[in-house]
């Protein structure tokens, strides 16, 4: 799979946008959405006032502090807010750039609009409205998302998917949808516009990333509450410190109060929270999956059950003929010839694979005047009526048995055994007969995609149950399910079966994801908690799902699940880190506040920081600097490893919990060494 999009983390252009936006986002009206950073902004304003007052000599010196020192604290707090704003703005800019690069192709595309009377007029794509029809011929760029109502064309979708091989799209059926920005390579199609301008998937996606319509996800809301709670704890701590200090007869400057407060409240996670959310959607987009909401990505991380189509996902495309088994007393060559003759009119890939396996020169057969009987779903057989009166048929076992028995012949027991043996090996038997007499059995086998077992094993370790959906009979289905390593299967599946299975799983409290493309998948896609529609699928399927996979890659769900998990983990890890940081900050600031009146508390200055002033400055600097330092982690996400929930917790608790306690001790000490050169 190719991703044409740049994966470089920091592009200068995006950094410039981020910097500009981080100033714009200082507006309190915008910042109020983030209670933690809003409180920091309030603290910054307080420091601004204090700086001015102290410079003019107003108030008590012990409380107002030194103007230069105040100015430094003010600048550092302002930087803290700016860094947090930058993280969000930069994540937005990245997501937007990603979406823009997809959208760019579609701007000002000329469209050949088809009027009701059949007249074509040339217009701009922006003028198309839902329900309009337009024409595309070879070489045209498709101007808008739509559904083919007439014709068939090969289309280059590489602009969107990065996949260079052209795909076939045709009217009717499950491959009728085209996406704006793709290019028609051959033939001519008439397309009806399905999305109003500004409401195509990309537009929706861009709006999400731009934040205008970004809603907080349930987990994000819960986390914001937790962070607000911690902020309140520190409000209590800082407010009560004033009477405590009065009791201890220690004057504490405003700068020290504000610094203590800002250092304690969870600014690290508060500053990075929205960037993490945006980055999650951005990562999905980089994997060529368009999500309709941030919630969908989050839900993907919780998936318990995954429904996958067998064909194309677990097995390579279609079944292939692998063996010819002639009936007793039937010449093998005659049987193979009969099989080939009966398959000449069989357009299905299975039929073609019989010709390939036989490897006979097809033009040696004289089929002039013969009647070709095409394969149909009702008869479940195909064949040929030759001019010499020979009627050859090839088809599903039950259909052929009926024909054989109705013409008075007996189906040989040896062949019956063979049929059973093939089925239980996961193969599909096809019976070939001539004038009602069985000639032999052709074995078709599914080819399981290389590497698919490892992917299922990985899902298994992630705790996701995989279910294979197939139209095969249960015997064949079981064999393939076991071979591929899926946990369960639905054999002889109809769309209703899928829907029923999803409902059953959901009733037992599980979250289900599925992938689909056809219109008849739409109910199941809508019912599933995460429904990923393939971009090649019908409009109905795309509307029903909550994600669209531009690559049409059925195994993409695995990536989506991991992106969802990463999103939650990154939030959890940085929350833990942020709160664990406070231990060191306490040890830096509290002794500094009281050292003059209670010299004994020097023993709590376990970092041996230079002076009270340098200790507070160092803590504030560390607190501000940790935000940009963690932006790459917030954007890339914490690495997910399918090692089981307990092991994962252990690992993250060690890295982000214990690390969160230790790192600031080192960081503040190092900063203090530098700061003490100046203070």
């Amino acid at each position, binding site marked *: 799979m190719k991703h044409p999009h740049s994966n470089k983390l920091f592009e200068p252009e995006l950094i410039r946008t981020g910097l500009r936006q981080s100033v714009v986002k200082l507006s309190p009206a915008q910042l109020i959405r983030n209670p933690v950073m809003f409180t920091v902004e309030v603290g910054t304003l307080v420091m601004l006032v204090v700086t001015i007052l102290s410079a003019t000599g107003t108030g008590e010196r012990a409380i107002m502090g030194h103007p230069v020192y105040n100015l430094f604290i003010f600048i550092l707090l302002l930087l803290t807010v700016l860094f947090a704003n930058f993280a969000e703005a930069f994540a937005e800019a990245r997501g937007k750039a990603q979406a823009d690069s997809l959208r760019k192709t579609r701007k000002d595309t000329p469209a050949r609009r088809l009027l009701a009377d059949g007249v074509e007029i040339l217009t701009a794509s922006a003028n198309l409205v839902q329900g309009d029809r337009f024409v595309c011929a070879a070489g045209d760029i498709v101007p808008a998302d739509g559904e083919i109502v007439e014709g068939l064309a090969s289309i280059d979708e590489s602009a969107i998917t990065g996949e260079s091989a052209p795909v076939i799209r045709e009217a009717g059926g499950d491959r009728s949808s085209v996406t704006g920005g793709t290019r028609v390579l051959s033939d001519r199609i008439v397309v009806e516009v399905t999305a109003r301008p500004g409401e195509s998937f990309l537009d929706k996606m861009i709006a999400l990333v731009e934040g205008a319509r970004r809603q907080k996800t349930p987990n994000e809301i819960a986390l914001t509450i937790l962070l607000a709670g911690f902020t309140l704890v520190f409000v209590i701590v800082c407010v009560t410190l004033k009477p405590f200090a009065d009791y201890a007869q220690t004057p504490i400057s405003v700068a020290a109060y504000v610094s203590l407060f800002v250092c304690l409240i969870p600014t690290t996670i508060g500053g990075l929270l929205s960037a993490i959310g945006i980055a999650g959607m951005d990562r999905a987009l980089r994997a060529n999956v368009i999500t309709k909401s941030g919630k969908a990505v989050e839900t993907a991380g919780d998936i318990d059950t995954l429904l996958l189509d067998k064909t194309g996902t677990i097995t390579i495309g279609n079944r292939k003929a692998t063996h010819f088994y002639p009936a007793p007393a039937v010449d093998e060559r005659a049987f193979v010839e009969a099989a080939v003759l009966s398959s000449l009119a069989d357009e299905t890939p299975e039929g073609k694979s019989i010709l390939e396996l036989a490897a006979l020169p097809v033009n040696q057969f004289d089929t002039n005047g013969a009647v070709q009987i095409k394969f149909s779903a009702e008869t479940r057989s195909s064949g040929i009526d030759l001019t010499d009166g020979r009627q050859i048929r090839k088809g599903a076992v039950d259909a052929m048995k009926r024909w054989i028995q109705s013409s008075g012949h007996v189906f040989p027991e040896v062949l019956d055994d063979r049929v059973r043996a093939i089925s239980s090996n996961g193969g599909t038997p096809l019976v070939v007969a001539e004038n009602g007499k069985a000639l032999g059995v052709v074995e078709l086998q599914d080819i399981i995609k290389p590497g698919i077992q490892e992917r299922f094993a990985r899902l298994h370790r992630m705790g996701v149950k995989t279910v294979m959906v197939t139209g095969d009979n249960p015997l064949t289905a079981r064999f393939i399910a076991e071979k591929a390593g899926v946990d369960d299967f639905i054999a002889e599946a109809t769309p209703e079966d899928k829907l029923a299975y999803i409902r059953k799983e959901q009733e037992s409290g599980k979250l289900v994801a599925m992938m689909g493309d056809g219109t008849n998948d739409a109910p199941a896609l809508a019912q599933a908690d995460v429904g990923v529609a393939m971009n090649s699928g019908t409009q109905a399927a795309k509307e029903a799902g909550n994600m669209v996979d531009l690559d049409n890659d059925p195994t993409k769900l695995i990536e989506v699940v991991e992106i969802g998990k990463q999103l939650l983990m990154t939030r959890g890890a940085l929350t833990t880190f942020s709160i*664990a940081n406070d231990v060191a900050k306490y040890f830096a600031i509290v002794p500094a506040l009281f050292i003059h009146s209670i010299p004994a508390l020097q023993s709590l200055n376990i970092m041996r920081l230079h002076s009270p002033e340098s200790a507070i400055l160092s803590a504030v600097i560390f607190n501000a600097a940790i935000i940009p330092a963690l932006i790459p982690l917030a954007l890339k996400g914490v690495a997910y490893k399918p090692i089981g*929930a307990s092991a994962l917790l252990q690992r993250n608790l060690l890295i982000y919990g214990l690390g969160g306690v230790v790192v600031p001790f080192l960081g503040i000490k190092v900063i203090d060494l530098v700061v003490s050169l100046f203070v």
Partner: protein
Amino acid sequence: MYSEILGVVAVFLLTILLALPFGRYVAKVYAGDRTFLDGVFGPLERLFFRLSGIDPTRQMTWQDHLKAMLTINLVWFFGAMFILMNQGWLPFNPDGNPSMSPDLAFNTAISFMVNCNLQHYSGETGMSYFGQIACLMFLQFVSAGTGMAAAAVVFHALRPEQTVLLGNFYNFLVKSCTRILLPIAFLASVFFVFRGMPATIAGKGEMVTLEGDTVQVSRGLVAPFVAIKHLGTNGGGYFGANSAHPLENPDYWTNQVELFLQSIIPMAMVFGLGFFLKRPKISWSIFGVMTVGFLLLAIPNIYMESRGNPALQAMGIDQGIGAMEGKEVRLGSISGGYWSILTTVISTGSVNSMHDSSMPLSGMNELLAMMVNAFYGGVGVGILNYFIYLILAVFIAGLMVGRTPELMGKKVEAREVKIAMLTALLSPLLIMGGTATAAWLIAHDPSIPWLNNPGFHGFSEMLYEFTSANANNGSGFEGLGDNTPFWNITTGIVLLLGRYIPIIGPVAIAGLLASKKYVPEGAGTLPTDSVTFGVMVFSVIAIITALSYFPALALGPLAEYFSM
């Protein structure tokens, strides 16, 4: 010294050993299974329920439970106020003790109703026998029963079923009293009587001391009072000196039994949860965290108390038997150290030594024990407090493993986190807010005569008083002059909030969880009964406590310690 340590270890291990079968019994009681006491109490209960018009089989939602709890507590409050303010003329007052002033009665009634037993009076001079029995001892039973009934609601709510119906509050309350508290309290008081504790309605006795003086000795129905005082983790002493008083804790064996009594139900409730849910592993996980926390507080205390006071050592005073200031010679410094932590982790608050005289860091551990208030904790409420930490830990841990957090198959979402966080916020607000108010008043008017010890220790005394009130513990750093309207009223308010909100919060969360769909545990679910998760909960408890109280502890006990 070794035999002293051995005695402490033995009573600790024995309590755990007995808490296991007792926990199984507790689970049976709340599941409504038949117990051998049904024959004794069944008919009596039915009579009471019929008289009061309560249908004990009516299923209640979590809101109904809370309404029932608050209503019946309000009734008890008014009853208690009446008795305390009129006990002077009411019967059974052989010593002629006076009625209480309104602010003291307010504080005392609330204090016993909320299972705290903070005492701003002395039993010898401040209570009549009628008041002791009909008001205080009654409340010691039913307040313990209230906490246990609330825990029983949470037990029911944590079952896998998706339901809003969580049993009947009155049924849980009565069963807690008759099936669990009453039988054990009865046995214990019989034992105490045989060890020399008084149980009489006669007034003061006359005694001739070794010096030949004649003294009047207060007595009363001490033995039954002491039994429920510990069993219900109430802690309010019959006498002012509490279990340091020779008639309230006559010898080594009563001391050991009192230690056993106060910890048996809190421990049994933890095991009871596992048996009730048929998931004993979860109990071991919770019990493990609680025990680690308890030992981390108790062992340093025993060490510091038995090592003696270095300042006195420097003055040439032998510290060979430990820091004996404020300790009973017959009980010793090790038992004093162990008791001081047991009584503070569990919200008993009875004392067999004066905590005011503990070494500074011992005092800090006693404060920490009450600030956490969930290492075993009070009867019923300990496990409720732990439940709040559990919710927060589940939430953060769930995020860290990349999955919407789940506790026992129920998703933990914004509403639950909000309630848990608000409940967790309450303790810092009340403790720090109360202490700050007192500190501010003293700082601006140093003539206020509350503090006998100014400086760091005086700060610790005020901090301790509010911490004890918030934790519904009831013990005190007794150097504080606390029988004044300010302390009576402020701690009274703290007592009320510190009691009911930490019950309402967990019950509400549990009720919300119960109404959610049960998600069977899969390979991706984070197990909440593993050692790793235990470490997680412990870290959450440690960090929330440290972050909330570090400045206060630094200015009180830590400053005192470093200044020594």
